[in-house]
């Protein structure tokens, strides 16, 4: 086996291992976050978590296989290590970018759900009596309700 084949094999092994490790971390730690966002609905949280991780795998493996080709020949072990290092460096940067993008998506979902339960932003100017027509169309007096 020449240097380039060894480089490729090492590149694939390391990249796949890194992708699996990052996806596993995301899957394990993202779950708590999603359960909170979906108000304790664990089935929905697990489902969304799984779908996010599948997308993560697809994009990363896609990138790893697209970036496999080196484009120049490698004569010595030194050049092989240099080539491997730059390739894996790119994979790491892409993984990092994807990871932060995922965190951004998580925080966006969380912010959206925080809005749903947000109290009125301004205090009322006062409190007045409310009369609403009942089923018979009458206007009964209603007690003050002050929260």
């Amino acid at each position: 086996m020449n240097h380039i084949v060894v480089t490729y094999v090492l590149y694939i092994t390391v990249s796949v291992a890194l992708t699996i490790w990052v996806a596993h971390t995301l899957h394990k730690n993202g779950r708590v976050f999603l359960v909170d966002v979906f108000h304790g609905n664990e089935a929905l949280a697990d489902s969304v978590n799984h779908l996010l991780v599948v997308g993560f795998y697809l994009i990363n493996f896609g990138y790893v296989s697209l970036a496999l080709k080196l484009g120049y020949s490698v004569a010595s072990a030194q050049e092989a290590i240099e080539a491997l290092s730059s390739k894996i460096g790119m994979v790491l940067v892409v993984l990092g970018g994807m990871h932060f993008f995922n965190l951004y998506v998580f925080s966006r979902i969380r912010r959206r759900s925080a809005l749903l339960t947000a109290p009125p932003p301004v205090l009322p100017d006062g409190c007045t009596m409310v009369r609403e027509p009942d089923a018979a169309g009458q206007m009964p007096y209603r007690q003050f309700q002050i929260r």
Partner: protein
Amino acid sequence: MRTLTVLFDANCNLCCRIRNWLQAQTKYVDLDFVAAGSAEAAARYPLLDHAATLKELTVVSDTGEYWRGAKAWLICLWALRDYRGWAIRFSSPELMPLARRFVVRVSSLRFRFGYHGT
């Protein structure tokens, strides 16, 4: 809070247009529209100062709290799904004076956009 009643000026074209826009939005809290100073408004809220509701936008919740002017506008935005974030942003101490100035300006200009009341 389930419903907010908006007491809007039914004589003002701009106000009616804004009401139509509000009605078309997706909401977190239902908005109910009653003409300010009308008999229905008086029947629902017997203790409210109805002369003031014709000067400034007033929003009353189903539990009786009411907001006037800029606060009422922010409460309307807060009820909308796409604008709740904006309402919270504009209610900060830094931006609230700006919102208040803007609302006063629009309220005083609203007669220019067509007004068919007395």
